[in-house]
């Protein structure tokens, strides 16, 4: 168990902080939004991030990766949460690449992962079909066809799904919705015949798409892993995604909190700084407490990934549920404590509020994760 960063990881975090605050401040997200950018992130900045090694950081050296571990990637992602930096880090590096690394065969790994590492290839995980995160409920059908597979059905809330070069699609090759047996993963080209991709304008201004598969045919080698046995791989992929997303949320919550505390020290009302009011002081202290507990959980969750611990599912649910709740608390308090200006578009706090709720629904709301944690613990 490591609950502190080592020297190298701290350096990496500092580098990330410098790069992001200089090149991708919250203002950059506002520009993407206001210019109606079709991708949802800046491709030029993504290339810069890849040059810094961020796309290759967790990949093994044999696939041109740096093999630096998730603790290091987590430090970067936390910093990216502070500036709400839009990039395909989560969709490509964490979710997409993990699916190929954990489930793929040697051919798939050696042909695709080096391209992820270099920034040539972006990926997206097409999973959700309903209104809430429910991986087991996957109903989308993949039937054996002409030596390969034919996919039919719809996917929603696919992060970066409209822009990704390739999609990792969760589909059912047997069994019924609700069952862990019968799920399979397929690699589908973003421009495949029969695939319609529509970008949805989300409240957080980031990229997410609705996908419709109408007789999309893929060859047999598009299958990732064993036919019908994708569930354990998918769970491991999702847990990595949950922990990394929670780290992004921690960064966002810390930034939001620190800006709010600064405002409490500046704002005068009734002839005094409003931060001198005990009613506000206690609420600020409570937020600080929740954030400190969250930091400890995140550290242990990243250790669980890097040390391949069996309790990763518990830690992932612990981390995601806590950050959902803490980010909601902090963004709500931040708006309220800023008063009138807190509900204006001019103040950047609103961007954090909006991102918080999207991130909460992504990869499982708190109820989902508390239920999962309880079941994992035997009650």
């Amino acid at each position, binding site marked *: *168990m*490591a*609950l*502190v960063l080592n020297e190298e990881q701290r350096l990496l975090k500092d580098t990330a902080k410098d790069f992001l605050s200089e090149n991708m401040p919250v203002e950059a997200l506002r520009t993407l939004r206001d210019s109606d950018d079709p991708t949802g992130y800046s491709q030029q900045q993504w290339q810069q991030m890849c040059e810094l090694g961020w796309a290759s950081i967790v990949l093994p050296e044999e696939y041109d990766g740096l093999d630096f571990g998730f603790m290091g990637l987590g430090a970067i992602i936390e910093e990216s949460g502070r500036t709400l930096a839009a990039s395909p880090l989560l969709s490509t590096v964490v979710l997409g690449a993990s699916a190929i690394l954990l489930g793929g065969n040697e051919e798939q790994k050696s042909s695709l992962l080096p391209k992820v590492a270099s920034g040539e290839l972006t990926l997206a995980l097409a999973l959700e079909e309903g209104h809430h995160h429910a991986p087991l409920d996957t109903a989308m059908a993949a039937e054996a066809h002409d030596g390969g597979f034919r996919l039919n059905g719809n996917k929603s809330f696919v992060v970066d799904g409209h822009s990704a070069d390739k999609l990792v699609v969760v589909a059912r090759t047997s069994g019924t919705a609700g069952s862990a047996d019968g799920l399979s993963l397929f690699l589908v080209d973003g421009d495949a015949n029969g695939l319609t991709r529509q970008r949805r304008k989300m409240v957080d201004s980031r990229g997410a798409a609705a996908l419709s598969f109408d007789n999309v045919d893929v060859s047999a080698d598009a299958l990732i892993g064993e036919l019908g046995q994708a569930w354990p791989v998918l769970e491991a992929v999702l847990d990595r995604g949950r922990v990394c997303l929670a780290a992004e949320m921690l960064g966002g919550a810390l930034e939001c909190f620190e800006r709010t*505390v600064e405002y*409490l*020290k500046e704002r005068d009302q009734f002839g*005094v*700084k409003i*931060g*001198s*009011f*005990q009613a*506000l*002081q*206690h609420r*600020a*202290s*409570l937020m*600080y*407490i929740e954030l*400190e*507990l*969250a*930091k*400890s*959980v995140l*550290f*242990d969750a990243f250790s669980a990934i890097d040390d391949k611990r069996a309790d990763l599912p518990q830690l992932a649910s*612990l981390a995601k*549920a*806590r950050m959902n709740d803490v980010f909601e608390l902090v963004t709500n308090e931040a708006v309220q404590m800023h008063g009138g200006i807190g509900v204006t578009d001019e103040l950047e706090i609103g961007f954090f509020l909006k991102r918080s709720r999207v991130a909460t629904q992504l990869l499982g709301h708190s109820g989902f994760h*508390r*239920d999962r*944690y*309880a*079941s994992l*613990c*035997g*009650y």
Partner: protein
Amino acid sequence: MADLDQFRLEVRQWLEDNCPASQRLPITREEQVWAGKNKQFPSDDAKLWFERMRDKGWTVPEWPSELGGGGLDERQAKVLKEEMKALGCRTPLFDLGIWMLGPAVLEFGNDEQKQEHIPKIARGDVRWCQGYSEPGAGSDLASLQTRAEDMGDHFLVNGSKIWTTNADKADWIFCLVRTDPDAKKQEGISFLLIDMDDPGVTTTPIELISGESEFCQTFFDNVKVPKANLIGELNKGWSVAKALLKHERKLMSEIGGDTPGPSFGPVQAALEYVGTDGNGKLKDAALRDQLVRHEMAYRAIGLTHFRTFEERMSGQADSNVPLIMKYVGTEEGKRKEELLLALLGHQALGWDGDGFNEDEKLTTRGWLFSKALSIAGGTSEVQLNIIAKRVLGLPQQ
């Protein structure tokens, strides 16, 4: 690290060889061995275990060995604690001297005072209690009024202290007293040790909502106290008190520990008193959610304890994080008691007599007692004030 692994093996072997089987079972309140002139041992095994640990210096593992301690460093002491926990070894000796006064004497006392008091605490020869709060000085501790007048060769003490835990059983009391009534609140206070047998010292127990009377009020009526019993400088007692409060808060923030309670935890109680459905889920969805929220919070708190330790060890200590532990430990501790009460339902509502087993009655009493946790040692509200001021740097009114 190799040395520490070797040390762990040695500790484990020694504990296995020396801790009697009966001393590895969960402890009840009656079985605790408290320090004192007239120490009571509930069994021969308890006496044997205490003596072996005392001779090893492991009643106070981190204190200097020349003063009766174990001479271990922080990492070794943690290993000992972990190994004792793994084997289920009971804490061999209970005393406020170990937890609170000793560290303060080691930090602020002179050589004579260390020689006089530290070995006695390590050996469990003296039972200590604490005299901080007064009827008119609770959260506003610095407004305390108990006077210690300089009479040349001694102090003359008058006043009273409240919430003096176990004062009716203690041999000595460490007190905050006012030595300069004209100075500003915090600046006229001194830290004084008083023998409970001195003429003019009397104590009466206070009955609590839990039915217990651990807390007392202690009165001082023209008590003569030798000058040698002043710890730290005259009128500088507030800094001793603050250092000591830190130890108290750390103690109160530690989860579980040796506090006697029911033999079951919340998960076990839930399975037993609520039961599961065909899918292995707790039958009551609302209770299940309450349970899992608590379990997840406890895990986060436990990880934060580990994190503060690792930060200290790696030299990256953020001195602010320990400030939150008293608040989270006691507040979540209270939620745990409320949860147990809800899980046991009617069976946690008994006060005495038939119809309720020991664990059930301990649950009821433990719930009531837990209300004191967020009041004693600095209320939760005071803790939040401290965080706002010291950590967040928010302006004061």
